Every structure is written in structure tokens, then in C-alpha cells.
């Protein structure tokens, strides 16, 4: 009797889970990002961007009368976890996924989405390989690291003959950006040090002591804000006065919080300021009213979600490949401005500009 009862209970739970997943009268999309762990802040920003977009669609009545439901997936910035949440998202029948954040997660997960015919639009993964592998369902709304690395290298041009030390965090994104930067450096600039650090480390005194001994004019870091902030802080503590140069992974108010005063004068590449784009103003106002401070990838996630939902709205029962073709062939009026995709799935225009920290705030470098 007891065994029968348990079996019945098991079946009920099983039904409940499977019926909850398929959505029925809903259109289900997902976001996948690191919601816990070191990069949790970025995941938080991305999820809020997506939620805001979905809420706006739902208040307008959804898509052809169907409400939109969002599923969140936490990849913990771990490639293994990213693959497993991608599997789960696919099995739960999402039409598309906004994510992931880390290139090292996006790349392995994108293979699964592509095979299953699920659209993936990453708001933040900048490694060229995300889109260069010919996957039909994979898009991004941010720039690529070859563009970003060039912007960084070009910014050093006016400094003339200088010495550069390069540090990276061994991830697909960090090392990829460091290598692109190195490739684009002019022959006047000498790379005096090229070293890797460990993600999650807190102590960089040993490697920074080494940096100090080669006396570079610029320390370039390919990696994310937790390590970027600590490196900046410990660099200044050790008395290294070189310029700190990093990319969009470090571009965040958290970076300034962690590095404190040491962040002053750091150079960071990122997209042009959103508050100068007229269409983004509306987004900024709504986001701030609802969630407070706008993160570096909130807007990208918002636009990515709008593009995905816009494509679904054009043809509700479209297959994954049809959706991908709609996304590729449409000129999207997004909050960031007009977005058009290349055949690969990159945005046609993705300019990077150099930012700097002034009085504890991120401002465009003049």
C-alpha cells in the first residue's frame, strides 16, 4: 500500500513538473547567465533587462493574445554548468534564450541551442568564436573582441614608444581579448610581460611584483571586474603608477567599488554612452524606476529580448530556423538604435569607445 502511495506521489510530481515546463498557452523564453558566484552582478543585470522587456510586451497584451513567460537559468559562470542549463532550457521548450554572459559558457552552450533549433542571442559574449563557427541560430547584440582589442591598441598609439604588460585570466574572453589587443599593437609598442592569473584569486602581489620590475607604461588586463578591481588596487598599493587598461568585462561600477580610489584614471573600452542615444532614454528611465542602477549589459539584454520577441511576434509558430532568418533579415529598431545582423549573426555596427574613471564615475575619455 505504502509503495503504491509513493509511486502515485512520484507520478503526480512528474506530471506536475512536465506540465509546468511546456508552457501551454504561454510563449516561453529564457535567460541564462551567472546568477550566483563571482559574476552574479552581471547575471542580475541581464535578467532585469530581459524581465523589463517581457513585462512591456505582456502589458501590451503579449504576442497574439499569448502571454510571455520567462525562465531563468543560472550557469554560475561555469562552462560545465552552462551546458547543463542549456540542456534544461531546451527540454523545457523555450523558444529562445538571452545569454550567456561569459564567452567560455556561451560557446559550448550555443552548440546545443543550435542543434535543438533554439535561438540564442548573447547580450555580452564578445569572443569572435561565438559567431564564427557558422551556427545558424546564434546571435549577439554586443561587439567582438577583435574590434575591441583594436580600439584598445589604437588608444595607445598617441603615447609613442611605450612598454606594455599584459595580464589575462585564461578564460576564452580574457585571453581572447588580450591576444586580440596584442595582435593590433603597433610595432613601436613593446610587450614586456605576458602573464596569466587565476580566476577567483584574491592575491596578485606575486605577479604584480613581477610587473613592477619590468616598469611598463601600461598594464593591460583581459578579464572581468572582480579580478580587475583587485589588480588595480594591489597595483597601486605596490606603487605601480602605470595606466590600467581593460575591456568591457571590467566596465562596471562594481569595479570602482572594489578598486576604490585606485580606479581613478583607469582606461576601459565599452560601447558608446547610452544616455546620448535618444531611443535609449526611455529604457533608462523605466529601468531606473524599477530596478535602480543600470548595469553595463542591461540595455543589451533588453534589446536582445525585444529582438527575440519581435521575431516571434512576426510568426508565432515559426520553427527555430525561420525565426533565425527573420532575425537576420530584419532591420530592428532597438533602444540602442538600429540593429542589423551580418550573415554570421554579429551586429553590423559595434563601435567601442574608451572610457575612464573620473572622481569615482565612468566617463567617456576625451
Amino acid at each position, binding site marked *: 500500500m505504502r509503495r503504491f502511495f509513493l509511486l502515485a506521489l512520484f507520478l503526480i510530481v512528474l506530471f506536475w513538473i512536465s506540465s509546468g515546463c511546456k508552457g501551454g498557452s504561454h510563449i516561453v523564453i529564457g535567460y541564462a547567465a551567472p546568477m550566483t558566484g*563571482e559574476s*552574479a552582478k552581471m547575471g542580475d543585470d541581464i535578467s532585469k533587462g530581459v524581465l523589463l522587456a517581457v513585462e512591456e510586451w505582456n502589458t501590451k497584451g503579449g504576442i497574439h493574445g499569448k502571454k510571455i513567460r520567462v525562465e531563468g537559468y543560472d550557469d554560475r559562470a561555469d562552462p560545465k554548468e552552462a551546458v547543463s542549463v542549456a540542456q534544461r532550457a531546451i527540454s523545457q521548450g523555450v523558444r529562445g534564450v538571452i545569454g550567456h554572459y561569459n564567452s567560455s559558457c556561451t560557446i559550448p552552450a550555443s552548440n546545443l541551442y543550435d542543434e535543438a533549433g533554439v535561438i540564442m542571442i548573447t547580450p555580452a559574449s564578445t569572443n569572435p568564436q561565438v559567431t564564427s563557427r557558422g551556427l545558424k541560430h546564434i546571435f549577439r547584440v554586443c561587439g567582438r573582441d577583435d574590434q575591441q582589442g583594436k580600439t584598445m591598441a589604437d588608444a595607445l598609439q598617441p603615447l609613442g614608444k611605450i612598454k606594455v604588460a599584459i595580464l589575462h585570466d585564461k578564460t576564452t574572453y580574457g585571453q581572447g581579448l588580450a591576444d586580440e589587443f596584442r595582435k593590433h599593437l603597433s610595432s613601436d609598442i613593446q610587450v614586456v610581460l605576458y602573464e*596569466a592569473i587565476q580566476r577567483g584569486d584574491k*592575491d596578485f*602581489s*606575486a605577479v604584480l611584483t613581477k610587473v613592477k620590475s619590468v616598469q611598463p607604461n601600461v598594464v593591460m588586463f583581459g578579464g572581468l571586474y572582480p579580478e580587475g578591481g*583587485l589588480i588595480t588596487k594591489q597595483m597601486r598599493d*605596490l606603487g605601480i603608477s602605470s595606466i590600467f587598461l581593460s575591456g568591457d568585462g571590467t566596465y562596471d561600477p562594481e569595479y570602482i567599488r572594489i578598486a576604490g*580610489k585606485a580606479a581613478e584614471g583607469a582606461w576601459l573600452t565599452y560601447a558608446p554612452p547610452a544616455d546620448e542615444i535618444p531611443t535609449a532614454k526611455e529604457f533608462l528611465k523605466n529601468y531606473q524606476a524599477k530596478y535602480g542602477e543600470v548595469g553595463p549589459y542591461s540595455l543589451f539584454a533588453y534589446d536582445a529580448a525585444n529582438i527575440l520577441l519581435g521575431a516571434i511576434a512576426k510568426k508565432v509558430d515559426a520553427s527555430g530556423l525561420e525565426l533565425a532568418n527573420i532575425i537576420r533579415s530584419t532591420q530592428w529598431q532597438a533602444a540602442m538604435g538600429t540593429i542589423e545582423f551580418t550573415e554570421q549573426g554579429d551586429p553590423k555596427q559595434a563601435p567601442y569607445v574608451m572610457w575612464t574613471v573620473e572622481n569615482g564615475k565612468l566617463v567617456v575619455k576625451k
Partner: protein
Amino acid sequence: MLIQQLINGIVLGCVYALIALGYTMVYGIMQLINFAHGEIYMIGAFVGVIGLGWWGAEWLITTNPWIVLSVAALGAALFAGGWGLALERLAYRPLRGAGRLQPLITALGASIFLQNFVMVSLGAREKVFPDLFHGKGIQLSTITLSASQIAILVVAPLLMLGLTFLVKRTKLGIAMRATAQDLKMASLCGINPQSIIAVTFVLGSALAAIAGVLVGSLYGVVSFYIGYQAGLKAFTAAVLGGIGNIPGAMLGGFVLGMIEALGAGYISSEYKDVYAFVVLIIILLLKPGGLLGERVAEKV
């Protein structure tokens, strides 16, 4: 550069040693590897952050950073000591006499629980430790020592001396050593092993918590996952020095810190952790008991 790297290594070693003491003391008495110990260190660091935030009195931090830091460290030690005690009571005491595997698995579970508990209750984001010293430090030609590094270099050796004195000279220390040698015999001689075990947990947790506050002020950032890596390194230090042996844990900590700093400085920081573990393997091959470990006859 060599001197600077040596200083980096000693500072790192001090921290590892302080945490390693907790592993080794508990192992010495209970033959239990308390994997939740790294989490206690993390909780200590969090108490530091929260305490200094509550205080909020900016002027106190700017006028008397040393006093603020000491009080924070003391508070963290007390609080984390309480956590250590609770951990022993709730997780390990019910399993006393149940063999060695069960408490070990419980320790792993406790570690996961504490980590996620802190993550859920305090958030997954990094907490910024108030900048107590504003970059004040000592500059001797090319060598730089930050105020937080000085704090570690002063406090850690003092604590280790204090612990050595406690274990070697006081009645409590004698009781601890007696319990470590033979729990049953010690209890026959009128020592209450339960309270000795509890004291050991509290002492180890307090040391780890002080290390947590000091490290927090050195790096300026505290997050819920810092206990894992610190715990792993400190455990390595304890094994390196000979687990169960108190001077061994201190020596192991310093050796490990030194290897990491010199390896990262002179070979490549890419494989910083590899050097530490390679040395561990070599030492365990040559001296399976660790650097100062004695080959103890099998207890019957």
C-alpha cells in the same frame, strides 16, 4: 624584487598558517578533517565587513584604524567561535563514535550549507571591505609594505606564539594534548573530552576568523566563496607540515606561501597552484607524514 616576493610569500604564509591551525588541531584530537573550516574563515571575514559597516563611524576609521581593525577581528573571532561551537554541537557531536567517514561527509555537507546560507542571506555579490588605511604603508627604496600587510605580519606571529604557549604551558593545553594522545585515557584521568573538543573548535574558528578579517582588509573584498579556496590551501598547508602537528601547520603555511609567491614571481603565475601541489606531492612521497609529522603507532 626578491625581497618583495619574500614579503608577499610571508604574508600569504601567515594567513595560510592561521587557517591551517584549525584543521590540524581538530584533526589532532578527532582525526576529522573539518572541511567546513574554510567557511568559518569566510564567516569571520563577513563579520568584519558587517561590523565595520554598522559602525559606520567614518571618523573612527580615519582616526584610529588600528583600534577599529582590532575590535573587528575580536568580534569576528567571538562570532566565528560561536559558529565553530554550533557546528561541533549540531554536526559532529551526534556522530561521535560513528566511525571516521560519516563525520567527514557531514563536514562536506556543512561546508556546502554554510556557503549557500551566506550566499542566500547576504547576497551573491562581493562585499567591499572599508579601506581602513588609505594606502598608508612603508616604502623602503623599491620595497612596499601596505599597512594591512604589516597588520598581518604582526598579528599572525603573535597569535601563533600565544597558541603555542597555550598548548605547551597551560593546564588547558596539557588537557588538549592528552586528549589528542588518547581520548579514552584522558577521560579516565578526569578530563572532559567533550569540552576539550569544543574548546578546540572555538580556538581554531577564532584564529580562522581573525585571518578572515585581516585578509579582508588586505584585499578589500569579501564574498561567500572565498572559504573554499582558502580552506583548500590551508588544508594543503596542514598536510604539508604534518596534519595533527601544530608547529607543522605553521611551517606548512609559510612553505606554501613562499612557494606560491616565488613560483608566481619567477616562473609564471599561470600555474601558481600547480607549484604548491607539486611540492606537496614530492614531500608526501619522501616523508609521508608531512614535514614535521611523526609516524604515530596505530592506536588500538
